């Protein structure tokens, strides 16, 4: 056992820091231009623009420790916004199950951040029970296209997406998990209607997507017909570990301390308040444990082992920690956290606090609700089998 970074890792850390510092956004610069240029420069470093992609597809081929260093450093540096849907969710599916033609067609635009994707899995009656999905895809007689009809819901950023990757039902035979087919569908066409859903944070990020007789060429099917569930499940595992956000939470906790030190209470600050301090400390202890749980999981992956049981803990602990940080931000804002709308009132940070907290309530719902996630651990990790009632 050894927790020190090797000299190579330290050198890497230094290199990452230098890159991030040299390419930070400078006030007044054109943001969109800076963003695309940032990815270009990161690419020139050797695949840093697609850090999680395998080497064979242009990724950097980092060790788990290097990935960890990258996460840590980018969590505290200013990096351009990025969306996970194409880059981290669809791309691995295409790499593992797409054909070469599809890989060549879709991966470069994802890499160049040219095309925005959204994830069309959930439906009104297929949430936690995703396999219950009903959106129908019927293959034409000549086998050249599918006709897709159904409703997707909670589709994040469907209103700005160019494409949607969809789970559709091509057969009702067998168990629900069978007969699901993975299709890629352009968004901007007749037959697709996107309706906004406004969430508690007051924002429009999720949508209802109606598909009516949408024709999808068979070339846009990923893998085999009826095998989509297996592809999607692998993707969900990816999504879950990506949702833990430990490095981001460590940075957010630091930031929260700074904010609390700006909240006056008589002659002291909120950071001197014993109960608030205790809550920050509890949070920090949880994060310390979770950080090492993540490292243990990374280390076992580095040794080529299957992700150990510790990895299943990460999504649960990670999202609950994120929510607690948001809650403490609201508490730090005090009365000002209640202010809403564009006018600045009170502490600057109080403004985003409430909407951040409200949005964070979804973290324990999407990507596998916490209760369902615990079911998965009980079954797959603890090995609990349902007994027959006698």
């Amino acid at each position, binding site marked *: 056992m050894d927790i020190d970074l090797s000299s190579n890792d330290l050198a890497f850390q230094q290199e990452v820091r230098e890159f991030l510092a040299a390419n930070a956004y400078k006030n007044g610069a054109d943001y969109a231009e800076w963003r695309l240029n940032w990815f270009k420069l990161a690419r020139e470093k050797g695949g840093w623009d697609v850090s999680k992609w395998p080497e064979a597809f242009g990724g950097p081929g980092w060790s788990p420790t290097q990935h960890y260093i990258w996460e840590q450093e980018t969590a505290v540096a200013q990096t351009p916004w990025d969306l996970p849907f194409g880059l981290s969710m669809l791309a691995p599916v295409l790499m593992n199950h797409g054909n070469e033609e599809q890989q060549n067609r879709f991966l470069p635009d994802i890499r160049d951040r040219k095309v925005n994707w959204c994830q069309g899995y*959930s439906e009104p*009656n297929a*949430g*936690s*029970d995703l396999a*219950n999905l009903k959106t129908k895809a019927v293959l034409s007689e000549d086998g050249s296209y599918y006709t897709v009809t159904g409703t997707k*819901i*909670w589709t994040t950023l469907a209103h700005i997406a160019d494409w949607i990757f969809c789970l559709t039902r091509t057969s009702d035979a067998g168990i629900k998990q069978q007969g699901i087919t993975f299709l890629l569908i352009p968004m901007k066409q007749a037959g697709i209607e996107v309706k906004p*859903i*406004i*969430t*508690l944070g*007051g924002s429009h990020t*999720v949508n209802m997507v109606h598909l009516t007789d949408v024709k999808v060429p068979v070339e846009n099917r990923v893998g085999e017909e009826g095998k989509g569930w297996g592809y999607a499940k692998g993707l969900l595992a990816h999504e879950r570990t990506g949702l833990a956000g430990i490095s981001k939470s460590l940075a957010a906790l630091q930031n929260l301390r700074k904010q609390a030190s700006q*909240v*006056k*209470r*008589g002659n002291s600050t*909120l950071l001197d*308040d*014993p*109960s*608030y301090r205790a809550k920050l400390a509890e949070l920090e202890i949880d994060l310390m444990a979770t950080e090492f749980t993540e490292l243990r999981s990374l280390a076992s992956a580095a040794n080529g082992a299957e992700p150990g049981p510790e990895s299943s803990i990460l999504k649960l602990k990670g999202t609950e920690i994120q929510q607690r940080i948001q*809650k403490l931000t*609201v*508490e730090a804002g*005090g*009365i*000002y*956290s*209640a*202010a*809403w*709308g564009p*006018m600045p*009132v*009170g502490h600057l940070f109080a403004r985003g606090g*409430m*909407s951040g*907290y*409200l949005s964070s*309530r*979804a973290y*324990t*719902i*999407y990507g596998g*609700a*916490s*209760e369902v996630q*615990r079911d998965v651990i009980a079954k797959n990790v603890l090995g609990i089998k349902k007994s027959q009632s006698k």
Partner: protein
Amino acid sequence: MNFDISSEQNILQDSVDRFVQDHYELDKRQLLVLTEQGFSNDNWQTMAELGWLGVSVPEAHGGFGGNEIDTMILMQAFGKGLVLEPFFASTVLGAKAIADGGSEDLKTKMLPGVVDGSRQLTFAYAEAQSRFDLNDIVTRAQRDGDDYVINGHKSMVLHAASAHQIVVSTRTSGGQAEQAGISLFLIDADAAGVEITSFPTVDGQQAAEIKLEGVKVPSSRLLGALDQGYELLNSVATAGILALAAEAVGAMEILYKDTVAYTQEREQFDHALSDFQVLQHRMVDMFMEYEQCKSLLYRATLEVVQNSTGAQRSVHALKYYVGKMGTFIGENAVQLHGGMGTTEELRVGHYFKRLLVIDAQFGNSDHHLALFAA
């Protein structure tokens, strides 16, 4: 011992329940939220006609002469509907400050208008540096002949834009956080030097920042004794806490009941969600904490009404518990509704937001736990 309400209070409860049922469906409420004023004048008039706006105003001044139990009945029902009209700011806070601290003249002049709805009041106590300490005040009132001149800044004042008069806590002597040296004044919202900047709050209500620059107020507008205003300030805050806690209990009732109903309707994995034991137990916990909040509400309210020695501690206990459990019940109501719970479309999110704001008003749960432990 008897926890039953009187037959008069039963009638009050029936009429306020009916009002909420008739006027506070979510769609109707959300339309009101979008108006500039943020509430309905018709509803306000109805409340006046039913005598609610004077519920705690002495009979001598046209009111109903009720106590905190009557207010509790109204606020609990308002919590079930997320009622928007400024009853809390005007009657619970403003009218109480005048009724308990104003001269006979001032009461005669001000209170009848509150009762008939033509006069609306609010209460400005918070400041940027005060966080939740009522006694931390830097807004100053200085004597100038027969008047006082007020300079300072008040924060998060409920419904200030539609108020006619504002009760303001000021420092007339002493250091920033001393209890001595505080005086309350009733100023006109349209007086020279009063600058009101309003904004919505996350729960769909209206609040404002208020700048006070050389605002002149005659000494006849002093509420309570000069420099001795803390006691009045605290008793208005106590009335406020009891009322907010009652509203919170009403909101919690909707949240746990909606969750029980929704999980029985919603099916996943070929089961109603309510079949899952982990959800059943969570809902049982939500229900238990709602009942516990209600118990502390009754306890604190009765102790305040009877002026018992432990009343202040019970009020701290109540505000602590309601803040903590309001968050617990709200978060779980959203969680158990899944994606639907995170939308503006279902009502649970709106009740949750109201509970979050209630926690931040008149001291959050940490603040009251510390005061309780002290």
